[in-house]
Structures are given as structure tokens and as C-alpha cells.
């Protein structure tokens, strides 16, 4: 059942019920603040703990112990007084902390004293030739099907890319009896050397042992090709072949399904539309919000926690959610903050959770040829704009992503740049010999997710309108 918010005003509104949002909402509500948690999915958990309250997968080892940590977070949230609305799409947030929400086809507006954005991450675009063919999908989409419906691939399946989530997904598919024919590892060889100085922190982090055993588990069952330097998908209206080059040798194999993944990046759309300042992160190769130690952004009252604050993984997300919530409690109900874990403790937890992150970021920094396409490769799927189209527009005067909209409508389709934004920034930066920071990003605007005209038309009139009519 979907319900509208019970109130028009809240102390704290948390957006997103993944690790960070669950932790933040629980702390805020436990401290006595009126707290609303809004989440777009049918149940809590976000992507990491997707379907945590409803998954049909009952054998715990198949999804791994880390997954089930989510159940504890959900339990603490449910024990608190936080109001939780699932299937709620926040389609607007502005610097006055006015929030527009679509629930069950109707829109409602609430106002918050503090907003904690926990909108998580998106998969980085992987614009290779043929990536828009039916039969090519992201690893994340495959994982969503696996967690919510226990669906795994059974046709000829190739997984290509890099990063911890790629190995996790491969392990989960295999444990559930799914088929993987080959894994094409695109990690650049040079990255191993670049990452070496950071290896000690990683070796002593919890990621190390888990990561290693997962890779062993997968490699025992699937042929893994490392050092892949070129990749393309082809087929006539449907994926038929995956072609790649490794060690200077080209190979082509038939496939029904190609799963692509080269890491995740912060989901910035709502924060950017609210006017939060972002900077280009040269290591993670994405836009990250400018935040202070409490997660507070450049917009007064808006804090960001979890992967939306810069990729840090689920453990760090939980702690960052707690830190942002504690900061809100300190501001709105200082007396109640005394009962919460001390900020110093939380910061120590965060440092621990972030151990090894630089190693991972350095090792799995995607190679330029998989981020910056050329020629006829599609950049913007919504408007079918190719890399060549973008370069042609640069040649006649488009200087950044916003000017490019006028020439090519890139980023103006329903995805609002989620699938092309980073590619466009990096492609234009390369073409113009500038840094991505100088080139900038699309100016994002509400609604950050489309709403129907009928829904907007049905928005209740404001009190002023009603009064004007009554006075007649």
C-alpha cells in the first residue's frame, strides 16, 4: 500500500533507504526528531541490501554474510518512530528544503529543517561499440533481478569490466546456478603498479580476504581473460557476438547476454538539482559533492551520506549516515545528542570502513578507451548522439555539456544525463584540452524523475489559491 506523508513539515527528511539512509533515519528518529524516510523501491535496502525484507533467496550463503547485515539495519529502523514511505519518488528538492514526492501516482510536498540525501550510486556508463544492443545490460541490472526474483542468466553469458561488484555478481550468479561463459577483465595492467603503494592498508582491510576468496571461487568455475584492452558488442538488432583484444590478440565469441560493469559513481542528480556544489574527483573519475566532515553540503540544511557523497562502499555508508544524522540531532535537539555514539567514535568507525579504498579506486580506475568513446559509438542513448556528433559540435563552438544541449539535445531525454553525463564531460574535456572540472556538467533540473502532466495538474492548490477562491 502506498500512503502520502502524514505531515507537511519534518525535522529531518532522509531520501533513500540504502545503508546510509537506513542508519541515518534510525538515529534521527531515536533521538526524537520527526523523521521521514522516502525510498523509491518497494522495500528498504537500496542496491546493496535490495529486497532485504522480501528476497526469495533463503540460503544465506548464496548472497553472502554482508548482505544480511541489512536486516539488522532495517530492524533498528522499524524499532524507531521514523515514518517510512516506500515507492516514493522524490522528484524535486530545492535550496529552501522544499521537497516534491510522487507516491502512488499522486504528488505531495513536504518541507524539512534538514535533508539527508542518501541516494547512493549509479553504474558508470560503459560506452563501447554496441552497448545499446538488446542483450547488453549492466551488471547492476542483472543483480537487481537476482536479488528481487532469484533470476539468473541461463544463455551464453559474458561478463566484462572490472571492480569488486563484478566479482561479487559473478559469485552470486554461480551460487544460484546461473551460467557464465567467460569473464573479460578490463583492469589496466599499469593499475597494479599504481595501486601497490596503497596495498598495505588494503591487505589489512576486511575487503582483502573476502575479495580474494570470491575471485578464487569464480576463477575455479569460469574462464577469466585478463588484460582486455578493446571490447565491442555486435549483432543485428540483438547481441550476437562479443569481440575483444587481450595481449594483442583479437577474439570473438558468440553470446546471448553481455553484462557490463566498470564501477559505480555517485548518483548526483537530486543534489545537483538542489544547487549543491560538486567537484570533479580525479581518482574516482566522477563528480562528488563538496562536503564538510559531517557530510554537510554547500546548501544550508542539506547533508549527503553514503555513496552519493563519494564512493565508499556499504560499511562506510552506514557510518556516514550516522554522522550526518548525529549532526542533524546536534543542531535540532542538542540534548538528545548526548545519548548517541560520540562523533569521535563515529569518525574512527569511518576511518576503519574506508581503509583500503584508495587501493581499490586506483586498481579499478577504468581505462580511457572504455570511458571516452570515438566514432560512431553512441554516447547519449536517449537522443542517439554519437561520439563523432559531440566532437563535430565542439568544432563549431560547443564549449561544455550545457551548450551541447543546444546542438544535440544530449542529456535532455528521460535519463537526464545519468547514462551520458560523465562520458560527455570527459569527451569534451579531451577534445578541448581542458580538465573535466573546467568543462563542467549538465545543469540538472527538476523533475529529476519524470512525472505525468496529469499528476502535476492534480497537485492540490496552494493555501493562497484556495483563499483567493473563497474570497471570490
Amino acid at each position, binding site marked *: 500500500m502506498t500512503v502520502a506523508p502524514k505531515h507537511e513539515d519534518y525535522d529531518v527528511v532522509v531520501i533513500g533507504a540504502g545503508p546510509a539512509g537506513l542508519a541515518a533515519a534510525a538515529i534521527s528518529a531515536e533521538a526524537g526528531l520527526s523523521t521521514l524516510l522516502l525510498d523509491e523501491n518497494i522495500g528498504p535496502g537500496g542496491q546493496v541490501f535490495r529486497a532485504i525484507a522480501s528476497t526469495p533467496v533463503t540460503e544465506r550463503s548464496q548472497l553472502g554474510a554482508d548482505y544480511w547485515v541489512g536486516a539488522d539495519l532495517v530492524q533498528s529502523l522499524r524499532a524507531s518512530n521514523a515514518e517510512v514511505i516506500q515507492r516514493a519518488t522524490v522528484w524535486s528538492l530545492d535550496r529552501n528544503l522544499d521537497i516534491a514526492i510522487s507516491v502512488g501516482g499522486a504528488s505531495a510536498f513536504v518541507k524539512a529543517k534538514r535533508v539527508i540525501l542518501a541516494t547512493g550510486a549509479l553504474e558508470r556508463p560503459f560506452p563501447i561499440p554496441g552497448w545499446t544492443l538488446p542483450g547488453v545490460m549492466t551488471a547492476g541490472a542483472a543483480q537487481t533481478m537476482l536479488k528481487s526474483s532469484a533470476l539468473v542468466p541461463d544463455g551464453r553469458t559474458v561478463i566484462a569490466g572490472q571492480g569488486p561488484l563484478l566479482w561479487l555478481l559473478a559469485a552470486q550468479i554461480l551460487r544460484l546456478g546461473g551460467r557464465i561463459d567467460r569473464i573479460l577483465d578490463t583492469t589496466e595492467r599499469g593499475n597494479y603498479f599504481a595501486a601497490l603503494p596503497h596495498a598495505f592498508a588494503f591487505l589489512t582491510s576486511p575487503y582483502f580476504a573476502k575479495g580474494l576468496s570470491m575471485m578464487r571461487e569464480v576463477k575455479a568455475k569460469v574462464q577469466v581473460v585478463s588484460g582486455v584492452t578493446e571490447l565491442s558488442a555486435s549483432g543485428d538488432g540483438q547481441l550476437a557476438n562479443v569481440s575483444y583484444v587481450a595481449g594483442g590478440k583479437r577474439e570473438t565469441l558468440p553470446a546471448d547476454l553481455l553484462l557490463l560493469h566498470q564501477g559505480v559513481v555517485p548518483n548526483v542528480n537530486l543534489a545537483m538539482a538542489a*544547487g549543491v556544489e560538486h567537484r570533479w574527483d580525479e581518482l574516482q573519475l566522477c563528480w562528488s559533492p563538496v562536503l564538510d566532515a559531517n557530510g554537510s553540503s554547500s546548501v544550508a540544511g542539506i547533508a549527503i551520506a553514503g555513496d552519493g557523497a563519494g564512493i565508499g562502499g556499504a560499511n562506510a555508508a552506514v557510518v556516514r549516515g550516522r554522522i550526518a544524522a548525529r549532526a542533524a540531532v546536534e543542531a535540532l535537539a542538542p540534548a538528545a545528542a548526548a545519548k548517541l555514539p560520540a562523533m569521535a567514535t563515529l569518525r574512527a568507525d569511518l576511518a576503519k570502513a574506508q581503509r583500503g579504498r584508495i587501493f581499490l579506486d586506483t586498481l579499478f580506475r577504468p581505462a580511457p578507451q572504455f570511458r571516452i568513446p570515438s566514432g560512431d559509438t553512441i554516447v547519449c542513448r536517449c537522443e542517439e548522439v554519437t561520439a563523432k556528433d559531440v566532437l563535430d559540435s565542439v568544432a563549431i563552438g560547443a564549449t561544455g555539456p550545457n551548450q551541447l544541449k*543546444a546542438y544535440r539535445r544530449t542529456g535532455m531525454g528521460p535519463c537526464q544525463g545519468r547514462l551520458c553525463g560523465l562520458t560527455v564531460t570527459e569527451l569534451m574535456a579531451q577534445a578541448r584540452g581542458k580538465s573535466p572540472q573546467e568543462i563542467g556538467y549538465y545543469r540538472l*533540473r527538476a523533475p529529476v524523475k519524470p*512525472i505525468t*502532466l496529469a499528476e502535476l495538474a492534480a*497537485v492540490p492548490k496552494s493555501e493562497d489559491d484556495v483563499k483567493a477562491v473563497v474570497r471570490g
Partner: protein
Amino acid sequence: MTENVDAIVVGGGIHGCSTTLHLCLAGLKPVLIEKDYAGRHASGVNAGGVRQLARHVPEIPLSIRSMGIWEKIADLLDDDCSFESHGQVLVAENEDELAVCRARVAELNALGFTHEELIDATELRRLVPAVADSCPGGVVSRRDGAANPAQTTTAFRRKAEQLGATVREGVAASNIRYSDGLWYVDVGSDTYAAPVLVNAAGAWAGTIAAALGEPVPVETVAPMLMITSRVPHFIDPVVILRGRKLSFKQFKNGTVLIGGGHLATPYQDRNETVLDWKSLAISARTVFELFPVMRSATIVRAWAGIEAKMKDDIPVFGPSSRHKGLYHQFGFSLHGFQLGPGAGAVMAELIVNGGTQTRIGDLGIDRFHPSTL
């Protein structure tokens, strides 16, 4: 270092860009100074209406002059600006509104203007088949249409640069001063000097005018627009309403632009606007009632551009009333886009020839400050 040029144009909107281009065509060497980039604000993000329809009488001659340029825009700019001419239709929703339309067309005819034409319910239905059955008629201006505003402003800028204009983007004009017959303007560490200064700075122009001793009643506003997902083609002309705030236009790709002048809150110093969704909901309701075909379309994006609105709703256009060599071109009050091409041509005539055949006398800044020149 000080560089001498023939004219300094402040503001890279369609007006500043058009004036710069027309100065080049007249053989001058102008510099255009834009603090962001050309078309960053209202000129790049407006509804793109190319409209003579329903204009204030004092600006009709300028609008007609401009229309002539729009119809050959590709010849001028080597870019079609996505200009399309399917007319603009003003819809009367009831008999009272139709009576107002009738009086307006009669008034224009008496003044010698024939571009607005009264239409009955049958002609309205022929032009706009999807409109609600209850509408009894309206007014059409058949040569009107629409263009892509960012593409157009950018095309003016590009052509001006090709013809020799210097374009400085990303740094604001500052320290504007007059000395010994020349205007001086700083751009970062550079200084430009010219006998002519054109103030075409849009929402920022009022401040420049005031600093030069010519304050005018102007405010900064941000009219909101929203665009829908693609819907099957159902309408050609641009539609505006007589009684309610709505303008409506379907593009070739099927998307529909909904505007009409509901305002966002501008934060001018930050180049930002905050949208007012309760007002946009009013626009959505109007569309919902008038165009049932639109009900299931989705709103993909909404935005607002920052611009200047005069208290009397007509622009400030022409020479300064106080300073030699200073010209104003701002305050277009939510309807300046169509005027851009013509206003640039006329401004160049004023600067180069000292006069123009186009009647613009009622638009001068001397309506606020009797001339001291």
C-alpha cells in the same frame, strides 16, 4: 593593456550578439563581453517564440522589422536556427475574451497594422484541431513561429566572431567609465576603449544603467518553462491564451514546451532560480483542460531563465539620455527573443548612421529621464 575598438557591447544574449553581428556587417570592429557564455540566461533558455502576435503597440514596428530578418535567418547566420513558421494563435476561451480580441484587431487595423487576424471557431479548429470544443475563436498571426533559442543565440555569436568581432566570455565587464570621448571597460586584466558602449546586459543591465546615472524601474524575473516527453504530432502553430497564462508549442521531435510566464524565484548573484511547482501545476491544469491528448504525457524537465522586466513592460532601447556614445538595449520583459535580430540591425543603424527608419521613439530611456544631451 588597453585595446581600442569601435564599439563595446556588454551582454552576450541574443540582443548583444545580434548588435555585435550587425556592427560587424556595417564594417565596425566591436568587442562583445559576456560574464558567463553567450545565451547562458534568458536568451538561451526561453520558449523560442518568434511572435509578432499580441505585442505592445510601441514595439510592433521593431517586431515587424525583426520578422523580415527571421524569415531569411539562414542567409544571415549560415544556420537555420530551427526556425519554423506555422503561425501563432491566441485562443479566446469564451465570448468575452473573443470580444477583447475583436477590439484589439480593430485597434491595430486603425493604426495600419495587419499582421493580426481575427478568426472564428471553424478557423481556430482548422489551425488547432486539438483545442477544447468550447473555445469560440481567437487571433492568428500567420507569419509567426518558433526557433531554438540557444541555437539561435549561439549562431549570432559565432557569425559575429567570424566577421571579426572579439568575443570575451567567462569574465564580467567591470569598471565602466567615460573619459575624453571614449568608453573604457575592464575585462579581467584587459581594458577595452571605444567611442560606443552598448548596454545589453539583460537582468544585469539595470545596475549598469543606474551606475551611469540613469536608473529605471526594472526588476529581475525568471519565467518558468517545462517540457514533456515525446507525444504523437498533434499541433503546428504556437498557441497562447487570451485569459490565462499559457503558451504551448510542440517541436518536430514530439516534445511539447509549456510556458506562459509563471515566475520562479531568481537568485541572480548565483545564476540560479528556484522553481515554484505550485504555479507550474496551474499551467499543467490549464493544459490538462484544453488539450486532453496531453494528459498522459510526462514532464521531463522544468527550468527558468533570469531576465529584466520593466515596470511598463516595454524595453529600454536607444541612445542614453545623459551620455554621448552610450546606448541601451535591455528590459525586454519576457518577450525579447523575437525582437533580437531586428533590434541588433536597428541598433547598428543608430550607432553608425545616427538614426533609423524603424519607429522606436516610444522605447527610449528618455521616457524616464528627459534628455540632457
